[in-house]
């Protein structure tokens, strides 16, 4: 199948994910400054609340997509030996997928 507009799509993914992460990080830092959780209970209640766990999951989804587009650009620019490039892309992709599964596991199992 011929894929169209992939460069445009990468450009859009990079910007949408960037704006979401900016908003999330701003909110996270302001919340930590204004109302810092003093102990485990407060932290756990805050992060595992339904709105916050959805927002956190979306943050990591944006982060992984953003990291993939960014690392792919860097590898395409600097690694010209095709086999090495493909191997590194595979490594980065596997690492990001593993991080994603890890985050899903954390948010899923601590939610209870």
């Amino acid at each position: 199948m011929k894929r169209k507009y992939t460069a445009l799509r990468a450009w859009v993914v990079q910007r949408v994910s960037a704006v979401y992460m900016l908003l999330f990080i701003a909110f996270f830092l302001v919340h930590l400054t204004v109302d810092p959780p003093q102990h485990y209970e407060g932290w756990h209640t805050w992060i595992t609340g339904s709105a916050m766990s959805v927002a956190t999951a979306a943050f990591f989804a944006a982060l992984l997509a953003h990291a993939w587009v960014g690392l792919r650009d860097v590898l395409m620019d600097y690694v010209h030996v095709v086999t090495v490039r493909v191997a590194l892309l595979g490594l980065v992709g596997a690492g990001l997928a593993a991080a994603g599964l890890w985050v899903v596991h954390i948010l899923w199992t601590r939610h209870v």
Partner: protein
Amino acid sequence: MPRLNKQRPVFFNLAEIQMPVGALTSITHRITGVLLFLGIPLCVYVLDLSLQGPAGYGQAAALLAYLPVKGAVIVLTWALAHHMLAGIRHLLSDIDIGAQLPASRRSAWIANIGGLAVALLAAGALL
């Protein structure tokens, strides 16, 4: 594809290449991006520990108080601050704000110096 002239001059002496401030911001944006990618496992690991119960929360706090980890956190804070400032600069120039050379130079300086300033604040708070 036309055959390239193999005799073309190549000048890769990095010490002698004049880097305008925008180029420095651009390459630093890439370097900080790769650093932040490498920091993802630390971030997820601390999140995991911190939600494992009061004991895990204590372990996460102890880990973040460990000097080499503090060093890593300061470097990652610099990387995040620079990457965000340079990223905002990018987003603004997409909508034609600061796309002209003088404004673009000024915002490049702001990203480079702002990133370092935030890292200094983080170092002051952590050390």
